[in-house]
């Protein structure tokens, strides 16, 4: 995956994290984490759906604090690659993503499947509660609402 697709990205030998404008590129995900030592690749795509809480949706507009989001993604990547022997990539969208398009992509490779699967599952769970990103859901009639989430307040 080419870094220039991203408005912010950072990589290490074991991980790649990035923020992209609009939908995530879902092609060639495996390429980013491929390693001849690894026999398993797990992937997760978070895709915008056409309904939420009983209401119809046509798109989600993602707001991002780039500095904080990159800091949180990088910290998460370092943490997960220290827990699991994996190569890991995590990318999230900023801006408008329509129904059916991916807003988050995560991939991990490992020697055996268990570590890659666990790393991907932990990555999406933790991304949702740590990375400063917000969703503005847009209805078919163009009205919108900001979705509630997890407070980062610690005092």
């Amino acid at each position: 995956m080419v870094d220039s697709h991203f408005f912010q990205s950072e990589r290490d030998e074991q991980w790649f994290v990035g923020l992209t404008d609009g939908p995530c590129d879902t092609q060639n995900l495996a390429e980013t984490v491929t390693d001849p030592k690894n026999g398993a690749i797990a992937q997760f795509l978070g895709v915008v759906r056409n309904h939420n809480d009983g209401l119809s949706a046509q798109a989600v507009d993602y707001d991002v604090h780039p500095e904080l989001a990159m800091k949180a993604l990088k910290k998460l990547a370092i943490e997960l690659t220290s827990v699991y022997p994996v190569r890991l990539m995590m990318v999230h969208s900023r801006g408008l993503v329509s129904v059916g398009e991916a807003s988050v992509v995560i991939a991990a490779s490992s020697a055996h499947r268990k570590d890659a699967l666990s790393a991907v599952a932990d990555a999406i769970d933790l991304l949702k509660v740590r990375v400063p990103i917000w969703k503005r859901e847009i209805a078919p009639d163009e009205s919108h609402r900001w979705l509630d989430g997890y407070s980062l307040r610690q005092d």
Partner: protein
Amino acid sequence: MSTVRLHFLGAFRDLGDEISLSVDGPLVADLRQSVAENFLKLGRDDLLLVLNRSVFAFGDNLLCDSDLITSSEASLLPPIAGG
């Protein structure tokens, strides 16, 4: 009294991208109080609950209310909802 340029994110964006606030006190708690008063002035009492669950940041550092205001620019981060 200091002036802080506050950048809005998430639900607070409905009020605009940023606002300049006078803050009477040295702590982030004082900044929070100033934001609350501003929301009341704007008739946006509905945002007070969100404000109470929000956190301030200077650059890429998240702050506690007991922290000192050390910058004239801050961000206000409501509860997050990525993914």
